[in-house]
């Protein structure tokens, strides 16, 4: 568990480019020309050739494909990037505007072990603050870990324990909005009153009833 030694500029560029390609393919865009153009603009003019030479990507027809090595690097980078964003936003309380820049720097310097530790600490978050999915790591699959999560879903909290709301994971705008408007704002103190037949949680002077699915979306810090 230590920072990787400082990577050379080329290595960094390759990771960066693979991250962009991986995300792009995930979003359903695998057009070779289009993706190459974005990568060239964002990283370096020659990067696509380097990736082809290094057997990180292949061109099939007009589609861009990642090789196993490329896939792994791209996915890991995206994971580190999005985990860093979560860490900065939830635990370190950074301004949301500055998160992106810092995450872009840090992502290259985290080892897989360290990323897993952060992931566990944050309760294996599923989404970055922008609402994009965080790829699973080994730590998410086997939950046995020496580190205890400090951020957990509300459903894992004990009754009557005082906790602080960290973040809400949902792509459903309505729930997010409704919870926010009911006073479920990050940083608010919560107390769980009961778990059955529905969850009852006290926020400020208000009691709110939620079902289990919603309680799983609400991450709190112990």
């Amino acid at each position, binding site marked *: 568990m230590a920072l990787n030694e400082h990577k050379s500029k080329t290595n960094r560029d390759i990771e960066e480019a693979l991250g962009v390609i991986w995300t792009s393919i995930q979003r359903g865009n695998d057009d070779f020309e289009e993706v190459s153009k974005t990568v060239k603009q964002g990283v370096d003019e020659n990067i696509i050739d380097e990736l082809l030479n290094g057997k990180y990507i292949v061109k099939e027809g007009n589609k861009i494909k990642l090789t196993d090595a490329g896939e792994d690097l791209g996915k890991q980078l995206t994971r580190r990037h999005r985990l860093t964003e979560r860490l900065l936003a939830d635990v370190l309380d950074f301004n949301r505007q500055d998160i992106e820049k810092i995450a872009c720097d840090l992502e290259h310097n985290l080892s897989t072990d360290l990323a897993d530790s952060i992931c566990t600490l944050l309760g294996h978050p599923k989404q970055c603050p922008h609402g994009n999915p965080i790829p699973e790591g080994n730590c998410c699959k086997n939950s046995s870990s020496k580190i205890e999560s400090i951020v957990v879903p509300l459903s894992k909290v004990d009754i009557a324990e005082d906790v602080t709301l960290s973040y809400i994971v949902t792509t459903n705008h309505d729930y997010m909005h409704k919870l926010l408007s009911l006073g479920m704002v990050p940083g608010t103190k919560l107390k769980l009153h009961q778990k059955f037949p529905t969850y009852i949680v006290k926020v400020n002077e208000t009691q709110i*009833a939620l079902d289990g699915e919603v309680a799983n979306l609400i991450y709190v810090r112990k």
Partner: protein
Amino acid sequence: MSKLIAFVGNPNVGKSVIFNKLTGQYAVVSNYAGTTVDVTRGTITIGSEQYQVVDTPGTYSLMPLSEDEQVTRDLIIKEKPNIIVQVCDMKNIERSLHLFCELALFKIPMVLVLNMRDEALQSGIRINIKKLTEILGVPITCCTATTGDGVNEILKVIPQATISNLTVEYKNSKDILTIENVLKDKSSISKALAVYLLSGDKDIKQYVPQKLQEKVFKLVSDTVKDEYKMFAAQIFHDNNETILNIVSDVKKIKHRKHKGFMEKLGNICLQPFWGTIIMLFIIFIMYEFIGVFVAGFVVDWIQTKVFEELINPFIANCFDYLGTGGFVNFIKDLFVGQYGIFTMAIPYAFAIIFPIVIAFFSFFGILEDSGYLPRLSVILNRLFSLVGLNGKAVLPMVLGLGCGTMAVLSSRILETKKERMIVVILLSLSIPCSAQLGIILAMLSSVSYKATIVWLLCILFSLFLVGKILDFYVKGESTNFIIEIPKMRIPSIINILSKVKMRLVWYMKEVVPLFILATVGLFFMDKIHLLTTLEKWFSPIVVKFLGLPIETTSTFIMGFLRRDYGASGIYTLAQDGLLNGGQILVSAVVITLFVPCLAQSLMVIKEHGIKIASLVFVAITTYAVLFGGLLRFLLSGF
């Protein structure tokens, strides 16, 4: 033109109570979030000036995500009220301030009303009004609307409304300003427009002046670059920071020694075990009060003592003075014949239905006003989730036990089309209205306790079977359960009475005319022998398949005109000894499951269109008959 005042606020803060008290008009009031679905209008006079007033649906935010929120925001943009009165829950000042921050963007003079002072004091919450007034820069007044304490003060502060001087430090203020400047001078709401556009609100686009649209939209998308969600989150975050600062300045919580009785009771109602016991106890009381006492004893007393001994002979005498003759006989039949207005419609309406409806609405009013209903929705949430609904459906379903027509209207509080559809169909199929329920219970209790239980099981079985099928087949989403639990309080008699009165007035206006119309319709159907023709057509089904006497056919037809009409018809037949126990049970089940009344059907058409309504109609009739036949078959087997 007189000035326009808009009442705005979070759900369940008492807007409607205040609106009613000030205007003397009725908006539906309940201790249940989201009861006001439409806007209600009225007028008030302050000094010598008359104001138009409009009550809006409760909303947590103007950032548009649900229909309710859009209603309120569109009203502000389109009608440009001269004054906004924001009603707040004093206990939950933080939440109200979120809405306040959003309202302040519109730069309209405002007044803040901190309601529920009594509950806030009980919770040990103290707000420094003087300081809050300074910070927000608008007049503030406190009241307890349920008791009327301080409500008249609101009239005094309304004319002093001012534009808030609160400015939130937005991290994205530069971006907002850029858009605002392009829009400037074209509209006084440019800042609000800018914020909504940048937050990715599509519906707001129509309010951007035509000429500027292209330029503004491009600028917006260049600035935000698809990160609308982040932008909206940042705005919320900035508002929140400002609010937390304000609240830490003005709010103090004094330590409370112990929980009050109502608070304890409120919590007990939420617990799985005791909550269920309390629910069963309430159902039992409801049965005893409405089914046994009112539908049995009171109705019987009014029927025999008032109608049969006093009114009917008097009216019959009056008509006897007319003499006889072709036309006179016709008139006599119309008023005092077998299907006469005075012999059928009026006694049914006033002797049977009226007491039952009053009893139900009073009972419902107590549950509603005390804050019990949201607790019931917690207890029943899991049960409802079996049929693709969640606990929120408690309100329309329980209200349906009062009046199905009103319940269909209230199904609008549900979030998705699928949920609304399921509720409307289940209401039509398996929820008897109070009038019908009262009669059915009276009728069944004359058979045996067992019959009542079998009837209940049949109805519940149908409810879950059909609900399950609907959940599977109706397209769309079911939503998750998120609901605010208000404080339990001792219901206020005045509130309940005014609600009962309002619902009764609605009932009289909407339902009693249909009642008389239905009787007249029946009368003419009888005159032109349509009734006997229909009886002939349907007799194979009724007599052979359901095993009921031929006379019940006309009661089923009446059942469509008015649910309770059909039930009363069967009740009369049962009293006359024409039905045996098994037949009473079968007809009670069929009439319960059978199509809803005319008024409710019209409401279903209004909400879901004629196509779906007819489909529902046919499906329900088929189901009711098949189920009745099956029940008869099973009963004859034992």
